[in-house]
C-alpha cells in the first residue's frame, strides 16, 4: 500500500515541481542583480495599463457570464428546436483561439471591415473596432471592441461552469418553488441563489482569461498590461517583465484564491450526489429561448468560422500554403497530441496524489497544481526560459540543452504548466462523482492496489482522463504565447505562424491556416462527443 502511494507521490511531486519551480526561480531571480532598474519600471504607465486590463477583464467577465447563463438556462430549462445538439456543441467557440476570433471580427468591424465600410458609406460613421472610450487622464480606459471579441472567445468557459451548476441543482427544489410561486419568482428566488457560486466562479474564470490574454490586445493595439509584459520580456529584460507583471499576477492569484477558497470552493469540490431528473414540465417549449441560445452561438462561433471559410476561398488557397505551413502544422499536431497525453497523465497522477492525501491536504495539492493557471502565459514562458536556460548553460549541448531547452521539452513543460489545471480537474471531477464502493469491494475480494486500479478505477475514470486529453490537446493547439516565446525553430507552432502571417497581411492564407487548425481541434472533440455522448466537461 505504502509502495503504491509512493509510486503516485513521487511523479506527482515531480510534475508539481516542474510546473511551480520555474516561477519561483524567475521570481527569485528578479530580486537579484539590477533590482533597482527593474522596479523602476513599475511606474504610472504600468498602472494605467493595469487599469485598462482590469476594466477589460471585469466587462468581459460580466458579459460572458450573462451570455453563458442565458445559453445554459435555455439548454437546461427550456425546450426548443435543436436543444440537445446545442447542448453538445456550445463549446465550439473554444476551438477557435482568441487571436483568430480577432482576425475574423476585424474583417467585419476593422477599419476596412465590411460593416465599417458600409457604415461609413451610408451614414458617414467612421467605425473602428480598436477605438477606446471614456477618457481618464487623457487616455481611454474602455475598449468595447476588444471586450466584445474576448467575450465571443471566452463565454463558453463561463457556460461550462454554469452548466455544472445547473446539473447540481436538485430539480425538486426548483419544482417546489414553481408550485408555490411560479416560474419567474422561482428562478429569482431559488435557481439564481443556488447558482450564485457557479456564477461567481464563471465570472472570475473569464476575468483571469481576459486579463491575461495577449493575442487579442496585441492585434488590436489595446494598451493592456500583457502587451507591456510581453514587450519588456522580448525587448528589455525578461526579469523586468516578471516585475511589471506583479500587479497582474497579484490580481489573478487573488481571483483564483477566491474561486478555490471562497464561494467558489463549493463549485470546485463538486458533488457526487445525483440531484434527480429534470422533467419535461420544467422545460416548457420556448422559441424565444431557442433563438436567443442559437443566436449567441452562431454569432460567436458560426460567424468567425464562416468568415474564415469565406476569406480562405477555394481549395487553391489551401494547396498554395500547404507546403509552406506543413512543418508548423506537423509540429503543432505532435505537440498537441504529446501535450494532451502528458496533461492527462499528469492530471491523473496529481489527482490521485491529492485523493490519497485526504480532503484537506489533497485540496492543498490541487491549489498548488492550479497556481500556474493564475500566471499569464508570458510570465510562465519567460520563467521557463530563465530556469532551463540557466540549467542548460551548465553543460552546453548536453541532454538538457538538446532535449529540453532547444528541443520539445520546454514547450511541453510550458503547456503542462499552463493547462495542468484542466488535466487535474478533468480527472478530479470524475473522481469526486464516483462511489468508492467498487474499489472497496475489489480490495475486500483480495485484489491488490495495482489490480484494483487497472481493472476497477481506471475504466471508471476513463471519461475524465479522455476529457483531460481532449482539453489539453485543444488548448495546446490554440495556444499562442508559449509558441512565440519558448519554441525553437524546430517546434514553431501553427499559431505562431498565424500570428506572424497576420503582420504580413496575407489574409487568405491566414484564414486558410486558421480553418486547418480549427479542423484539427474539431476532430478529437467530435470523436469524444460521439463516443461518450458528452461535452468536454471540466467541472
Amino acid at each position, binding site marked *: 500500500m505504502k509502495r503504491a502511494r509512493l509510486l503516485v507521490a513521487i511523479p506527482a511531486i515531480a510534475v508539481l515541481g516542474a510546473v511551480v519551480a520555474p516561477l519561483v526561480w524567475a521570481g527569485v531571480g528578479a530580486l537579484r542583480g539590477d533590482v533597482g532598474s527593474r522596479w523602476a519600471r513599475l511606474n504610472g504607465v504600468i498602472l494605467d495599463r493595469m487599469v485598462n486590463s482590469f476594466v477589460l477583464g471585469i466587462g468581459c467577465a460580466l458579459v460572458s457570464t450573462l451570455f453563458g447563463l442565458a445559453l445554459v438556462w435555455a439548454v437546461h430549462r427550456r425546450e426548443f428546436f435543436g436543444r440537445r445538439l446545442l447542448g453538445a456543441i456550445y463549446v465550439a467557440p473554444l476551438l477557435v483561439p482568441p487571436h483568430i476570433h480577432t482576425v475574423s471580427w476585424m474583417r467585419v468591424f476593422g477599419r476596412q471591415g465590411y460593416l465599417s465600410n458600409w457604415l461609413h458609406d451610408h451614414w458617414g460613421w467612421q467605425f473602428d473596432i480598436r477605438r477606446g472610450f471614456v477618457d481618464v487622464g487623457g487616455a481611454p480606459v474602455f475598449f468595447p471592441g476588444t471586450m466584445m471579441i474576448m467575450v465571443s472567445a471566452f463565454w463558453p468557459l463561463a457556460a461550462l461552469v454554469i452548466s455544472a451548476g445547473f446539473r447540481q441543482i436538485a430539480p425538486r*427544489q426548483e419544482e417546489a418553488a414553481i408550485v408555490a410561486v411560479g416560474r419567474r419568482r422561482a428562478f429569482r*428566488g*431559488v435557481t439564481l441563489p443556488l447558482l450564485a457560486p457557479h456564477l461567481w466562479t464563471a465570472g472570475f474564470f473569464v476575468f483571469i482569461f481576459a486579463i491575461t490574454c495577449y493575442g487579442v490586445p496585441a492585434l488590436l493595439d489595446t494598451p493592456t498590461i500583457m502587451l507591456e509584459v510581453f514587450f519588456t520580456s522580448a525587448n528589455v529584460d525578461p526579469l523586468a517583465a516578471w516585475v511589471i507583471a506583479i500587479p497582474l499576477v497579484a490580481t489573478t492569484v487573488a481571483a483564483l484564491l477566491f474561486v478555490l477558497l471562497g464561494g467558489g470552493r463549493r463549485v470546485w469540490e463538486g458533488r457526487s450526489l445525483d440531484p*434527480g431528473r429534470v422533467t419535461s414540465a420544467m422545460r416548457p417549449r420556448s422559441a424565444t429561448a431557442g433563438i436567443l441560445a442559437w443566436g449567441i452561438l452562431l454569432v460567436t462561433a458560426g460567424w468567425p468560422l464562416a468568415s474564415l471559410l469565406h476569406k480562405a476561398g477555394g481549395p487553391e488557397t489551401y494547396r498554395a500554403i500547404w507546403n509552406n505551413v506543413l512543418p508548423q502544422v506537423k509540429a503543432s499536431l505532435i505537440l498537441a497530441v504529446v501535450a494532451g497525453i502528458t496533461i492527462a497523465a499528469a492530471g491523473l497522477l496529481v489527482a490521485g496524489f491529492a485523493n490519497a492525501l485526504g480532503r484537506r491536504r489533497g485540496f492543498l495539492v490541487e491549489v498548488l497544481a492550479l497556481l500556474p493557471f493564475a500566471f499569464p502565459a508570458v510570465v510562465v514562458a519567460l520563467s521557463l526560459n530563465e530556469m532551463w536556460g540557466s540549467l542548460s548553460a551548465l553543460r552546453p549541448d548536453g541532454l538538457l540543452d538538446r532535449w529540453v531547452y532547444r528541443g520539445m521539452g520546454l514547450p511541453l513543460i510550458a503547456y503542462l504548466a499552463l493547462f495542468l489545471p484542466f488535466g487535474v480537474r478533468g480527472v478530479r471531477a470524475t473522481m469526486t462523482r464516483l462511489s468508492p464502493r467498487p474499489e472497496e469491494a475489489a480490495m475486500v475480494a483480495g485484489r491488490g492496489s495495482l489490480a484494483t486500479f487497472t481493472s476497477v478505477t481506471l475504466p471508471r475514470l476513463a471519461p475524465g482522463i479522455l476529457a483531460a486529453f481532449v482539453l489539453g490537446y485543444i488548448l495546446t493547439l490554440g495556444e499562442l504565447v508559449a509558441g512565440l516565446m519558448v519554441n525553437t525553430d524546430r517546434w514553431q507552432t501553427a499559431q505562431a505562424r498565424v500570428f506572424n502571417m497576420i503582420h504580413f497581411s496575407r489574409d487568405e492564407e491566414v484564414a486558410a491556416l486558421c480553418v486547418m487548425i480549427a479542423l484539427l481541434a474539431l476532430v478529437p472533440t467530435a470523436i469524444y462527443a460521439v463516443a461518450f455522448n458528452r461535452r468536454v466537461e471540466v467541472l
Partner: protein
Amino acid sequence: MSAHVEIEDLSRRFGETEALSGVDLRVERGERLVVLGPSGCGKTTLLRAVAGLEAVDRGEIRLRGERVSAPGLRVDPARRGIGFVFQDLALWPNMRVARQLDFAAGRRLASAERAALLERFRLAGLERRRPAELSGGEQQRLALARALVAGPDLLLLDEPLAALDVATAEELRGVLRAIARERELTIIDVTHRQEEAFELADRIAVMRAGRLEQVASPEDILDRPANAFVARFVSRAAMLDGTAAEGAFRCALGAIPIPAGVTLPEHPRLAVRESRLEFRPGADGAARARVTDRAFLGETWRVEVDCDGARLRARCAVAPEIGVEGGLEFRGTPWFVSGGGEA
C-alpha cells in the same frame, strides 16, 4: 357538484414504459386519499401530473371542476392552488426557515402570522436556521408548513414520511390529520407503506404498473381485496386454492363455510391474512401445521408454518419452537379472489 380532483383516463409514457395507463379517480373535498403501490408503479407520476409537474399523453385532470391538464394543456403548477411536499422535501438550501415560509407565501408574512405558523409546526425558535441545521423531523415539519403557508385547499404528499423513524412519522401523521380537519384540506398522499395508508386515509387507491387495482375504504381494501395482488401487497395475504362444494370452501385449512350472499368468483382462491390465522402449538385445530420460522412482534408472535404443503403466516400467543406442530384455525369472514389471470 364536482369533486375536488377528477382524473379521467389518464395516461403517461416515458419511452417504452407506460407509467400511467387509463387512470380514473375522483377525490372529494376534504377527503384524504392515499395512493398505495410498490415502487415504480406510477403513483408519483400520478401525483406530479395532478400538480402540473408532469405532462399527460391522454385523458384529463380537473381541479374544482376546471380542466388543468390534458394533452397540449398544462395549467401552471402555481395556479392550481395546491401544496406539494416532495419525497426528498426539496427544501431550499439557500434560505433560512423564516425566508422559506415568506418565499412560499409569495409575500413577507406578518410577524404574528409567522409566529403562529412556526408554533403550529413546532418550529418556533428555529427561524434563523437553514435546512442543513434542522433535524429530520424539523425538516419534515418545515416542508409541510411551507406547503401550507399559502393556504392551498389541496395538499399533495409524495412519500414525505418514508425516510423518518417510526415515532417521528407517527407524530407527523397526527399533525397532518389535525390540519386536514382544521382546514378541510383535501389530501392525496402516495406511499408504499401500508401502515401510513391505513392511519391517514379515508380511502385507499392501490396501484400496480400504472393502473388502479382498487379504490376503496381501508376496511374494504383489507377485508375485501379486489384481487390477489391487492390482497398480497396490502396485507401480505396468502392465496389458498380449493374447491367449493356444499356451502364450504375446501382447502389446506379444511372446510371454510362460505357466508350467505357471497358469490364466488371464477377459480376462487381464499385470501388469508396472518391476523386471521391462529396457531396453537401442540393443540388440535381445523388443520395441522408445523412451524418453520418465527418472529416476535412485541405482544404476539408471528409464525411461518407449513400446512399441507402451503406456506402460511399466522399469529401465535406464545413463543413456539421451530419444528413444533399444532393446530391452525381460520377466524373471521372469509374473502375469495379470482385466481384467473393473476400476475
